[in-house]
Structures are given as structure tokens and as C-alpha cells.
């Protein structure tokens, strides 16, 4: 019974990761992006908590949300009218198509990974999906904010997979520090050019 609940929870988390990462690729509005990233961290929390103690999983969730807050505040303090991009941008067919390819490719990879690492399919697919979507982000965008989103997504995916094999508290703490460092770097990239102009 407990196994069924965990399985349902994991698949729900996987679905959440799938939906948020795909919309993150499609949607260009920064407010949506931050919100979707925060939801993505919730999915990561749900997938990680099967391997980590709840306290450590919560720490991951909190550090992820802190990264979202840092990026959000940076955008909020610097946003100008020209930065508000249409929410349904050009090239969306291409984005949906490539996202579809990544979903299919990561499914094939996840079958082998789950057998290799002895983890559930939902966990391995969720992890590889986020890594793939993060790489797609890096491939199609050169905007600093988008690059940071891509890197954070890749790290989120990696952390799910890594939590299954390594449960060290110090590694988890340092990975959280790296996440926050990336968010601060992203905030710096967003804020500095405008500060200098002013």
C-alpha cells in the first residue's frame, strides 16, 4: 500500500517535471519562468524524498526556491517595458518538436538507467528529462537569464539521479550552494548592465 502511494507520488512528480520543463521551454515571460522553476523544484523534492531523509529533501526544496527568489528579485528590480516578451514566441513548433524528441530519447535512456542504478522509472525518467530539457535550453538560447535557467534545470535533474546513489550531507549542501551561486551569478548578469547604464 505504502509502495503504491510512493509510486503514485513519484509519477505525479514526474508529470509535474514534464509539464513545467516543457512550458519553461515554450514560455518566454520571466514571471512564468520563475514560477515554473519553483514548481520544478517541488517535483525534484518529491522525487528526491524517496532516497533522502525528508529534512535533506526539504533543504533542497528551500535552496531551489531561494534561487528562484534571487532571480525573481533581480528581474523585478531591473525589468523595463522592452523586456516583456510575448508569451507565445516564434519558433514554438520547433520547440515542441525538439521537446518531444527529448521526451522520447530520455524515455529510452531511462529504461536502461533505472535498471542500472536500481531506481524507479519515474525517478530516472524525471531526472534525465530535466537534464535533457536543460541542455535544450542552453542550445536554443544565449540570453544570460535563460542560460542560468538551463543550468539550474540540468543540475536539478542531476541531483535527482545523484541522490539515488550518494546520500552524503556535505555533497548535498555543496550542491545547494552551487545552485544558489548560479542564481546569484544569474542575478548579477541581469542587474549589472542596467546599473552601469544608470
Amino acid at each position, binding site marked *: 500500500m505504502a509502495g503504491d502511494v510512493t509510486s503514485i507520488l513519484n509519477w505525479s512528480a514526474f508529470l509535474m517535471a514534464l509539464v513545467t520543463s516543457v512550458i519553461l521551454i515554450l514560455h518566454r515571460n520571466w514571471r512564468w519562468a520563475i514560477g515554473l522553476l519553483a514548481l520544478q523544484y517541488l517535483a525534484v523534492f518529491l522525487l528526491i524524498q524517496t532516497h533522502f531523509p525528508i529534512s535533506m529533501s526539504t533543504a533542497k526544496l528551500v535552496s531551489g526556491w531561494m534561487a528562484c527568489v534571487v532571480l525573481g528579485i533581480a528581474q523585478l528590480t531591473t525589468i523595463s517595458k522592452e523586456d516583456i516578451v510575448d508569451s507565445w514566441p516564434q519558433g514554438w513548433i520547433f520547440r515542441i518538436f525538439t521537446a518531444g524528441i527529448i521526451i522520447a530519447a530520455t524515455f529510452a535512456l531511462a529504461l536502461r538507467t533505472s535498471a542500472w542504478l536500481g531506481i524507479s522509472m519515474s525517478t530516472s525518467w524525471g531526472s534525465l528529462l530535466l537534464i535533457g530539457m536543460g541542455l535544450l535550453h542552453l542550445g536554443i538560447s544565449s540570453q544570460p537569464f535563460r542560460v542560468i535557467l538551463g543550468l539550474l534545470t*540540468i543540475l536539478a535533474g542531476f541531483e535527482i*539521479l*545523484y541522490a539515488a546513489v550518494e546520500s552524503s550531507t556535505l555533497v548535498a549542501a555543496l550542491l545547494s550552494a552551487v545552485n544558489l*551561486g*548560479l542564481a546569484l551569478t544569474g542575478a*548579477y*548578469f541581469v542587474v549589472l548592465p542596467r546599473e*552601469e*547604464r544608470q
Partner: protein
Amino acid sequence: MSAPLLWIFLPIILAGILLLVRNQKVIALIASIFTFLLTLAGWLLPIDTAIKIGTLTFNIASSVDILGRHLILNSTDSSLLILIFGSATIWFAVTPTLITARRMVSLGLAIIALLVAALAVEPFLYAALLIEMSVLISMPLLEVPSRRPSNGLLRFLIFQTLAMPFILFSGWLLAGIEANPGEIGLVQQAAILIGFGFSFLLAIFPFHSWIPLLAEESPPYTVGFILWMFPTVTIFFGLGFLDHYAWLRDAPALGIILKTAGLIMVISGGLLAAFQNHLSRVMGYAVIMETGASILSLSLGGNAGMNIFLMLLIPRFLSLVLWTMSLAILREHSSTLLLNDVRGLGRLYPYATSAVVLASLALAGLPLFAGFPPHLALWDRLASTSLPVVFWALIGNLGLIFSSIRILIAFSSAPDETRWESRESPAQRIVLAIGFLALFLLGLFPQWAQSLWTRLPGIFTHLGN
């Protein structure tokens, strides 16, 4: 007192304090004296041995424990500490003669401390996280104010960040191999992950594109510092892997993989340098070529390969300092560093322009310069195993020499009526002149740096011994 406190935590604390100081000359002076003292300490102070001064006796412990993990700096690491902090002393001491970012010295000190921590940490997989943190700290250094982050900077961040998961995961696999040494599948998987991790970290082809981009877009002197510190520490980190794992060290394919990767970098770096029209991009490709030469030397294996690798370090360091300092001087007075924009500057900046040409020729391994003895030794050793490899390596070096000649022609094509003068400051002239002298003297007397590269293999248990 412990060695990690002295060489890791104190520099981090000082870096934090220096961020609060506004006067750049004071910052550079304090940091230079501090790093020089740490270099001297590495040379003179024995670790884990009682030291008696008068009635006072004290001991520098080699290890510090943090949350069950260890930072360990043994007495065998002292030569590496001398190399890192000695080179940092020179990088920082030169900054008052240039217009550089105020935070270069303070953040540079923090980067060095984190990189030393990466080499000292046990288990070693934590090193990937520490290297990533130092990459993140370097971002404000490399960004050009009032501009959006450059493509080179973003690629640097992306590639270094992508390296971290590969190294972390390979660390987990390596622990599995230690438990089951016969698992061929695990060995192959670990080797592939390590290969990808170090390809990203060392900018091995095809992950090298960020170096020329970063060199072109970011402040030259800061880029030089980053391109010296990161590849040097990363190679030592990689050598630590080889030293630790016999199956990796003794793998028959290792030599071939290293040779192929090194050769591709030497050829691509040299040939692409030949066709660049931007002085900083030439420097970037020269760095790729030099990293390739280091990997090529390590492919030789044994003592010979290790010695050549270590011999390459000092000439590379000197050339990079001289080259990037000169580029920084020229950048202060020229709108860009495109060959068309620096035409004829040889008559206005004779020291800086000569330094650019001499440093590039030294890196290319031209006779009489510091780079020649190690390159000659490398070519000689490679020739004993494969002549085509030497031929292609020489093609790469010729590419850089060709590029140096193009630069020389651009610098010297001034109108006849242009008068000879020197617009460099007296301090810049003195530093550049000392650099020329060092490049020549180490070319004529390479044994002067011998004491360093004969002690360095001591940091490894198996390699080079």
C-alpha cells in the same frame, strides 16, 4: 595551526577583507606580500614536523576535518603550493601597473584558495564542487561592465558547470570499481565519464570554443590569470586521478587517448591562431595549443612525460603574464585589439608590442626562449615513438609562429614619419623588461627552474617516481 588554515582559509578571509578596501594599489600590495609569504612558508615550513624557534615549539598539522571530510596538505604538496602562490604573487604584483578591476586581486585570492582546497580535499569528488564554486566567483572578474555577459563568459560557465556532474558521477563509479575491480563494464563507464568531465574542464576539443571568445571579450590580464590558474590546477587534479587508480594509469588506451586529444589541440590551436585577426584570440588559441602540449607530454608516460609536463609550466606562466599584460596596456590605448587597429603601434609601445611577439614565439617553442627546452624534449621523445605525431605537432607550432610574424608585421607597419617613443609607464617598462630577461634566461639556462620541477613529482605516489 594547520596547513589548510594557512593556505586555504587565511587567503579566503583576506579576500573578504580586501573586498572592503578601495585603493587598488594597497590591495595589490597586501595580496602580493601575503601570497609571497605563503610561497616562502611553502618553501621553508615543514608540515607535520615540530618546529622549534627559541623556546617556542609548534607544529603545522597537515589535515583539517570538516563534517567528516578532510582537507589535507602534506609536506609533499609544498612544491605545488610554491608554484600556485608564487605565480599568484607575480599576477597580483603586476596589477598596480595596469588598469584592472579593483576586485581582481581579492576575488583572485579567493579563487586560488578554493582551487587549493579542490586539490586538498578528501574524498576527491568534492573537488568538482569546489572548482565549480571558483568558476562562479570568477564571473564578476570576467564580465565587462555596462555590457551584457559575453558569449565566451556564458560558454565558460556552461562548460565548467557541465563538468561537475560528470566528475561527481565518476567518483561514485570509481568507488564501485574499488569494491569490484573486475567489473569491466563499470571501468568503461567510469572512464567515459572522467573523459567527458576533464574534456569540459580542460577545454579539450570540441569543448574549447569558450577560450578564444572569452579572450576576445573579457579584460586580457584577468583572462590570462584565469587561463593560467584553472587549466594548471585541473591538470594536477586529473593527475591525482591517474595517481590514485592503477587501472586507469595502466590502461593501454590511456596513452593513445591522451596523445590524440593533445595532438588535436596542438594542431587546431596552432593552425587557428595563424588565421586570427584579433590579438587576444591568438592568445586564446595559443593557450589551447599549450594545454594540448601538456596533454601530449603526459601521453608519454613515466618520468620523462611528467618531467616535460612540469618543464612546460614556468615558460607558459611567464609568457602568459607578459602577453596578457602587454595586451592590457595596448587595450588601454587602442579601441580594439584587431590587427588593423594596432598597426604601427610598435613605434609607440615598443615594450608592449615586443612582449606580445616574444611571448607568442616563446610559447611556440622558438630557440633561445624559455619554451624551447621543454618543447625540444617533447618533440624528441615523441619522435622516438612516432614521427608523424611530431610532424603534426610541429605544424601546430608553426601555425603560432606564423601568427607571431603576422602580428610583428602589423606592429611594425607604421608610416615613415611616425617617431619612435615609449608610451608605457616606467613601471610597465621595468616589469616587461624583467619578463623579457626571464624568457631569455630560462631559454639559455632551463636548469634554473629545475629545483621546482624535480620536487613537484613528489606530490604523487606513483606518477613520475
